[in-house]
C-alpha cells in the first residue's frame, strides 16, 4: 500500500490544483463547469504544441508546425493561454448568459455542450495519439518513505507551493478577499462597491490558469491525450465534493485525499486484478459523501436538497 502512496500524492496534487479552480468558480458564479476538464487538457496540449520540435508531426493540419520553444517558456505561455481562453469564455459566453438571466441548470447544460465541442476539436487538431513531453526518464528515489522520481518530487513541491500561494492570495490580497465576498453574497458585495463582473472575470482567468497548470503536471507525470480532460473531470468533481463544493481549502485537501484513495485502493484485497476499476472507488466515495455529508468535510451546512 505504501509503495502506491507516491503515485497517490502525484495524482492528488493534480486533482487538488484543478479542484481549487473548479471550486472557486462554483463559489463565485454558481456554475458547475463541466468544461473545466477541457481547460486542464488545454494546458497539456498547448505546452506540447509550444515545446515539441518543429519537425515533429503533432497535428493533422500541416500548415501548423509545433514551435519548438524551451520547456519552461512553453509552460509559461500555456498557462497564459489557458487564462486568456478562460477570460474569453466568460466575456463571450457566460457573461451574456448571466445578463440574460439564463438559469443555472441551462448554463450547466451549456458547459456540457462546450466540453463536448472543445474535446472533439482537440481530437480534430491533434492526431489522437497518446503523446509525451520530450523529457528524459528518471529513476525513482526515496524521500522519507515516499518513492518518487526527482522530477515528480519537484512537481509535488511546486503543486503544494501553488496551493499555498493561492491560499495566501485568497486570504490576504484585496482581489482574493473580493472573490470570497462575491462568493458569499453577490448582492452584498455589490453594495460594498465591489465590481462583481470584474471579480467573476478574474475568477474565470485564475480558475482556468490553475486548470492548465494541473494539465501540465498531468502531462509531465503521465501522458497527454485528447480526452484527458474528461477522464480526470469526474475525479476533480470527487475532490471538490469531498472537500466541500465552493470551499477553496477544502477542495485542496479533498483533491489530495481522492488522489491518495484512488491509487492506494489498488492495494486493497478485493481490488486484486481489478486495477482498472480504481476510479470507481473515488466516484463511490464521492456519492457516499454527498449522501452522508453533502457539504463535504470542510463545507458549511446549507440547504442542498
Amino acid at each position, binding site marked *: 500500500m505504501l509503495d502506491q502512496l507516491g503515485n497517490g500524492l502525484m495524482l492528488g496534487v493534480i486533482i487538488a490544483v484543478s479542484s481549487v479552480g473548479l471550486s472557486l468558480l462554483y463559489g463565485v458564479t454558481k456554475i458547475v463547469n463541466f468544461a473545466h476538464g477541457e481547460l486542464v487538457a488545454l494546458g497539456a496540449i498547448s505546452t506540447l504544441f509550444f515545446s515539441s520540435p518543429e519537425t515533429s508531426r503533432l497535428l493533422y493540419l500541416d500548415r501548423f508546425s509545433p514551435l519548438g520553444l524551451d520547456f519552461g517558456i512553453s509552460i509559461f505561455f500555456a498557462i497564459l493561454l489557458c487564462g486568456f481562453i478562460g477570460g474569453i469564455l466568460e466575456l463571450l459566453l457566460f457573461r451574456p448568459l448571466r445578463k440574460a438571466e439564463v438559469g443555472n441548470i441551462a448554463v*450547466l447544460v*451549456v458547459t456540457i455542450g462546450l466540453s*463536448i*465541442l472543445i474535446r472533439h*476539436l482537440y*481530437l480534430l487538431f491533434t492526431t489522437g495519439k497518446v503523446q509525451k513531453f520530450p523529457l528524459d526518464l528518471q529513476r525513482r528515489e526515496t524521500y522519507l518513505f515516499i518513492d518518487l522520481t526527482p522530477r515528480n518530487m519537484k512537481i509535488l513541491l511546486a503543486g503544494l507551493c501553488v496551493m499555498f500561494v493561492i491560499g495566501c492570495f485568497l486570504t490576504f490580497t484585496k482581489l482574493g478577499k473580493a472573490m470570497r465576498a462575491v462568493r458569499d453574497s453577490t448582492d452584498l458585495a455589490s453594495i460594498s462597491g465591489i465590481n462583481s463582473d470584474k471579480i467573476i472575470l478574474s475568477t474565470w482567468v485564475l480558475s482556468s490558469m490553475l486548470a492548465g497548470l494541473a494539465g501540465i503536471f498531468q502531462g509531465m507525470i503521465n501522458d497527454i491525450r485528447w480526452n484527458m480532460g474528461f477522464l480526470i473531470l469526474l475525479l476533480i468533481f470527487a475532490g471538490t465534493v469531498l472537500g466541500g463544493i465552493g470551499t477553496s481549502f477544502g477542495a485542496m485537501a479533498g483533491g489530495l485525499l481522492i488522489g491518495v484513495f484512488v491509487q492506494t485502493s489498488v492495494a486493497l484485497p478485493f481490488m486484486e486484478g481489478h486495477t482498472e476499476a480504481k476510479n*470507481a472507488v473515488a466516484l463511490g466515495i464521492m456519492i457516499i459523501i454527498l449522501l452522508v455529508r*453533502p457539504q463535504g468535510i470542510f463545507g458549511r451546512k446549507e440547504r442542498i436538497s
Partner: protein
Amino acid sequence: MRLSGRGIVTGLVTIFSLASVYILNTGNATRLILSLLTFAGIYGLSAIGLNVHFGWTGLLNFGHAAFMGMGAYVTLLLVPHAAGREGEITTSGLHIFPAAVIGVIAASLLGLLLGLPALRLRGDYLAIVTIAAAEIFRLLVRDLEGLTGGVYGIISYSDSLQKYRPKLLDSLLKDIDASLNQVWVGVLAWFSIVIVLLILRRLNNSPWGRALRAVREDEDAVRALGKNAVWLKLQSFMLGAGIGGLSGIFLAFNYGSLQVTTFVPLLTFYIWAIMILGGVGSLSGPVYGAVVFWVIISETDKIAGLIFENANGQQLAGVRFALVGLLIMLLMIYRPSGLLGKKEELLLNVK
C-alpha cells in the same frame, strides 16, 4: 389529435430533413434512411424516458446510459449468447420476451437504487451523482469479465429476436437494399414508441401525471397537499429508467454485438441533445428530435469531407461529436424549448 401550428412546422421540418437525405445520397438512400430511422427510433425511445425524468419531473439525470446498459446487459445475459475472451457459449436461456421484461425491470430497479439516495439532492448535485454512477456501472461491467464478458463484449444473441421476424417483412423488403435484421429492430422500436407514448399520454392526464408536474413546479406545495413528493419522484425515475432500459435492449440488437464502450457518457449526451431538440416536456417531441438529430448526424460526414481530404474514422467522429456539442450549446442558448416544447413548461430557469 389536435394539430397546432407548431406541430405542423415540426412535422414539415422532420419530413424535409428526411427528404434532404434522400436527395443528397443518390444510390444508397433507402438503406441509409432505414438505418437512420432505426437509430432514431431507438434513441427517440430513450429520449422519451429521459423526458419523463427531466421534462416531467425536473430531475437532472446525466446517467441515462447506465439504464440503457442495464436493460441491454440483463436481457442479453438471459437469452442464449456467447461472451468473454473465449466466446464462451451459453445455449440455454430464456425466451426473448420474458428476458426483455426482466431487463426493463432491472433498469427500473437500478433507477430505484440510484434514486433512493440521490433524489434528496439539489439539481446540479444530482447531475454529478448520476454521471458518476453511470461511470461506476460502466467500469464494473468492464471489470466483471466473468459475468459480463468485460471488454470482449457479448456476441451471437441476435437469433433470439430475429427468429421472430415475420415472413411478411422479408417479402416486402425483397427488392430493397437493406439490412433485414436492422429493419426488424427498427419496426419493433417504433412500435414500442407508439405503445409507450399511448401509455404516457394516459398517465400525463391522470391525477398522477398532474401531481408529477406539480412536483416539478413547486415541491413544497405538493408536500403541503399531503402528497409524498419523494415517492412521486422515485416513481418517475423508475418509469424513465425502464423506458431507457427498453431502448438499450433495442440498441444492443441493432448492433448485433454488445461492447461496453457503447454506454459511455457521450451516449447520455446524445439523448440529451435529442430531448432538447425535440422539446423538453413535450410528449412526442423527442421522436421528431431523434429523426432530425440523426439526419444531422448522418450528414456531418460530408462536412468532415469538406475539411479533411480522405477523413479517417477519428476525424469523422471528431466532426460529428463537435457538432453535437455545438448543437447542445446553441439550442440551450437560443431555443431551450426545442421544436415542440412549451416555454411555460420549461424548468430551466430555476435557480
